[in-house]
């Protein structure tokens, strides 16, 4: 019993509550931000311009998607040309450089609220922890989404000569779990 009491004194409060400390959550967030701010992700995580980019292909980082592509308010190009016209819905290894990538999901832009281009770590963090601005993900649903989404998984293995996002989808999911368990701390928090 005495040994147990001693152990309780040396353990940090976060461990007792089975929650990672805030510092660990912030460290996980910094790795999450490294992914979210990578051009492989910010190419499509754009705001209401609806203009995806072609960064991380060896072009200038600000290079917009060719063919004057505008995904529009629909975010799927319904007003002009559908994303799916070129980005066929099919499982593919996408080995051919410069070809339109294909995944087993309907190609589209993320919601406007998930605009990550030119956003700071603090801005994206606050956006990601709020279900009203993170596409409705509550709690650990976000980690499940990262594991299951064909888009997210493609970002880590884009094929051809495309630059991948850093790490793996599983590593990102684990970091999200840690960040959420730590109470979704953001660097911008007081």
């Amino acid at each position, binding site marked *: 019993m005495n040994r147990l009491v001693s152990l309780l004194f040396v353990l940090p409060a976060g461990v007792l509550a089975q929650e990672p400390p805030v510092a660990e959550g912030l460290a996980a967030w910094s790795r999450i931000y490294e992914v979210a701010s990578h051009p492989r992700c910010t190419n499509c995580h754009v705001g209401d311009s609806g203009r995806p980019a072609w960064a991380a292909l060896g072009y200038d980082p600000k290079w917009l998607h*060719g*063919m*004057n*592509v*505008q995904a529009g308010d629909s975010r799927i190009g*319904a*007003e*002009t*040309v*559908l994303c*799916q*016209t*070129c980005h*066929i*819905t*099919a499982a593919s290894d996408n080995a*051919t450089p*410069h*070809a*339109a990538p*294909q995944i087993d999901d309907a190609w589209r832009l993320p919601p406007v609220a998930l605009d990550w281009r030119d956003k700071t770590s603090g801005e994206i963090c606050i956006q990601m922890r709020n279900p009203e601005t993170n596409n409705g993900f509550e709690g650990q649903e976000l980690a499940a989404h990262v594991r299951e989404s064909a888009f997210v998984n493609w970002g880590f293995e884009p094929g051809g000569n495309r630059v991948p996002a850093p790490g793996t989808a599983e590593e990102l999911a684990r970091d999200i779990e840690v960040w959420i368990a730590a109470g979704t701390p953001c660097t911008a928090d007081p």
Partner: protein
Amino acid sequence: MKLMVNGREHEVDVEDDMPLLWVLRDELGFTSVKYGCGIAQCGACTVQVDGIAVRSCQLAVGDLDGDVTTIEGLGTPEAMHAVQQAWVDHQVAQCGYCQSGQMMQATSFLVLNGTPSDDQIDAAMSGNLCRCGTYPRIRAAIKTAAAKLQGA
């Protein structure tokens, strides 16, 4: 495998990964469908699957899920589709190589957006390249076809 093209069922003996473009051209003889780049960068191979424009060079036939329409199925010389008629009225084509893809894209576009602005026409057609530079006539023909399809 079986596929529907222009309202008729066809059976072909090909590998699943053969692009629809080559099935249409080499197996079924729909030579309106043109090879341009093979990587969905030029639009010459555009056909429709269930009415949606698709770059057939990028679609493995094993992934095909729907009925295919090529320009042979859009209209006939006696009863042209409004887009085809507008193309004739505006004498759009020069060499003609890209034009079946242009018309298949334009027709799909007008189903999605019946009253497009000039900017929307330009955006919708920017993925269909024309080395002859017939773009001003393409835009004019689409506006004519849109008006006709809207009953103006």
